[in-house]
């Protein structure tokens, strides 16, 4: 567990018309750790990660990455830094097979213009094996026929394949049954063990207490508190989510 955070978001704000979705929020993620991001519906969780991913710009604040201030204007910028996001709807093309999905938009080519299927397939299998994703019949089957947990695993594998350093998962277990959730949580832990900084958004505190090292609580667009999981309880976190005093609000201290 490293001391300086690899991703350090400082004082970001975001307004959508009349809605102040984020106000002066600080957020950090550390390599080898799982950081959970929790909060009620509309607290600003998705807004925060979309800003980090470069889907839209923050109104104010700074992002520091590996100790340096960076500018993220679009998803390509964040990907170039090594930040990958697994969106809630997974962003998989059902009609394509596993390999095609993993390399979508970054296909490897052989000779001029030609897809290098063999090397993509090899890299795909290697990544899946390194993540101990072992329930696939074939990496050449269409994603449409996979279970929810397998789809989630493919989406995660797709994110970590690019030497990424920070992986952000938006509600990865929301649509899954018990056994499938188990698989995904194990996968999340393995990512951190491999030295990645993992950010997981979830409404399920039980899951979070199982995998997360730290928990950041957002409420109404403000950061309420950052907990160390081992030093806190579910009651404490629930209280912060529903009625937390807003420690970072200027003028409210």
């Amino acid at each position, binding site marked *: 567990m490293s001391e300086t955070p690899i991703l350090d978001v400082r004082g970001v704000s975001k307004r959508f018309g009349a809605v102040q979705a984020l106000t002066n929020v600080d957020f950090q993620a550390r390599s080898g750790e799982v950081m959970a991001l929790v909060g009620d519906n509309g607290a600003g969780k998705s807004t925060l990660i979309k800003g980090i991913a470069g889907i839209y710009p923050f109104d104010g604040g700074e992002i520091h990455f590996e100790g340096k201030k960076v500018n993220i204007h679009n*998803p*390509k910028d964040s*990907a170039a830094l090594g930040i990958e996001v697994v*969106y809630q*709807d*997974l*962003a*998989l*093309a*059902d*009609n*394509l097979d596993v390999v*095609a999905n993993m390399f*979508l*938009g*970054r*296909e490897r*080519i052989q000779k001029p*213009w*030609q*897809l290098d299927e063999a090397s993509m*397939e090899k890299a795909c*299998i290697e990544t*899946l*094996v390194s993540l101990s*994703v*072992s*329930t*696939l*019949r*074939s*990496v*050449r089957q*269409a994603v*449409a*026929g*996979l*279970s*929810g*947990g*397998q789809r989630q695993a493919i989406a995660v594998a*797709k994110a970590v394949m690019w030497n990424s350093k920070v992986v952000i998962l938006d509600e990865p277990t929301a649509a899954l*049954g*018990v*056994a*499938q959730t*188990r*698989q995904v949580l194990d996968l999340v832990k393995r990512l951190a063990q491999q030295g990645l900084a993992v950010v997981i958004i979830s409404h399920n505190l039980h899951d979070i207490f199982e995998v997360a090292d730290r928990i950041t609580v957002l409420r109404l667009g403000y950061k309420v508190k950052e907990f160390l999981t081992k030093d806190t309880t579910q009651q404490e976190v629930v209280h912060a989510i529903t009625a937390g005093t807003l420690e970072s609000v200027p003028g409210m201290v």
Partner: protein
Amino acid sequence: MNQAKTATPAKASRSYTSTDIQQILLQARAYIALILVVAVFSFLSEAFLTPANIIIVAKQVAINAILGIGMTFVILTGGIDLSVGSIVGLTAMIAGGLINEGLVLPYFGVIVYFHVWMIILISLALGAVVGMVNGLIITRFNVAPFIATLGMLYVARGLALLRSDGDTYPNLVGRPEFGNQGFPMLGAGTFLPTEIVNGWVHSAQNAFMAGLYTFLAIPYSVWIMIVFTLIAAFVAAKTPFGRQVYAIGGNERAAELSGVRVNRVKVIVYMISGVCSAMVGLIIASKLVAAHPATGVFFELNAIAVVVLGGTSLMGGRGNIGGTIIGAFVIGALSTGMVMVGVSSFWQQVIKGAVIVLAVIVDQMQARMQERVALQQQQRLELATQTAEG
């Protein structure tokens, strides 16, 4: 080599079920339809399955197949191109005008006559530009492909009529003093002169050799179809661009989030369709040795028909070039066969229409069955994980 370790026992023993067989039949339906059509007409008419007739069918097929190739790319992205027939007409008129009238530059007081090769290139480029306009309207202004290309259907047709004030450019043979002769070769020419081949055919020892010789006189338009098919099949199946076309049709947002330049791919797809349409405009004008502004009316519908018949889903993301070519051959064999057997032209329309609708019904059946199979598979997997984990 594509096994990623098997852990779930549920799928270990897999035998072919009736759904599997049904699926295979549905997937192969274009081939089955082609075999059926050929079998029926060969039975009804001796002249049907002869080399000479196959070449006649192939010439007709070339038109729909080339248009269908462009249309396949468009439909694979989930779009549609209704402007195809009008682009055929426009490029035919532009090419015809360039041959007969040249390019008039009033300010310089000169008329430029181009070599036929230049005219072909200019026409193809024009097709690409019209397709690009389609693509840009669709992507920049968020206009539905149906509407954008419907607009272009009218605009391009209007421009074709404006070019000559509605007249036909006749006798597109060029003139020796302008150095622009040879245009009719494109539609009717063959690598080996027909007379020589015919001589060989007549002196052939047996029917088999005679047949082989006949195929030596395959016209350029059929060669063009073959070349377009090979290139398109390669692009669709083997290149990153092709992969991205399928991805956009399957899940556009996913493609976007994965870094695919969705708008760029879409524009290119309409450009491909435009180039294919221009090629057809050239072939037709060359074959008729004349350019008429109404050339290509309703061709977009033929193109859509062969694509759908070939198993490409109008929803995008599913289908391939090979299917489209087979679809074009089904329509071509059906049309020629009905003429040979003496089906009235009114009934020909009815039958063709029925075949197309039947194809779409079968397409829907296949899509639903695939969904069902995928769902079953998912449920089976979910069950398997649950039992495996206790």
